[in-house]
């Protein structure tokens, strides 16, 4: 049966995969996908601790705000990516060199 540790393992797995996506992939939108994975791992941790440790609902509130902030972050991130694509005709992360001194 599902214990706290299985949820923690799943959350850890999602976090590590998201981190690897952010490090290894060179496409900006793929890196945004990795950020979504990391945020979901954190939210899952909050809800799992709420269920198994203390039964008040503060973890649910925190997870709700994580979802809200992830939506805002996705909107702003995609706006930046689209702007970058308009300027440089590319979304490869190595092409973002305009701010280099």
């Amino acid at each position: 049966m599902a214990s706290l540790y299985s949820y923690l393992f799943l959350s850890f797995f999602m976090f590590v995969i998201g981190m690897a996506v952010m490090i290894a992939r060179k496409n900006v939108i793929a890196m945004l996908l990795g950020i979504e994975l990391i945020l979901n791992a954190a939210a899952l941790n909050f809800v799992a601790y709420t269920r198994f440790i203390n039964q008040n609902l503060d973890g649910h509130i925190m997870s709700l705000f994580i979802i809200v902030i992830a939506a805002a972050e996705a909107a702003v991130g995609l706006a930046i990516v689209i702007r970058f694509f308009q300027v440089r005709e590319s979304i490869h992360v190595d092409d973002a060199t305009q701010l280099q001194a």
Partner: protein
Amino acid sequence: MFDSVLFISSAVLVLVGSLGVLFIKENLMHACVSLLTALFGVAGLYATLGADFLAATQLVVYVGGVVILMLFGIMLTGGGTSNENKFGIEKVPGMGSVKTYIVAGVNVLVISLIVIRIMANVMKDYKAVPLPPYESTVEKLGTLLVTDHVLAFEISSILLLGALVGAAIIARPTRRTN
């Protein structure tokens, strides 16, 4: 019984979906659909944890909002497989040498030891007590949102407004001033 089936299927969805985000390199569309699979799995995990409102919110906001937004972003910046060179889909070069892998392994050991040492204090009082039965959390969550956490609630509305206006301004095409 139903709990276990739901947990196992959701866990499989999460594992397969997140691995797909990492390893599907040919077409970014497929990676995005794989992320959608993982988010479905997370919603199922919320359901097994008794968080019904969060599961519904996860489905509505992520699957209906964020992933669709990502798909539109992919389509607006060149689509799936077209112009691979411009799109930056190439094999990740073999990162690092033996020395860097050794350093990474030592880092994993040290950090996991530190985390285990910290978590040992937190988890000391944890006993697997019999869990309370599932009940609806919608009413309690609504009450909490407008009583205890009302400041965060209002600030998040301001944050969303700022994010939307900022996104519209950033993505606007340049207007020539002459």
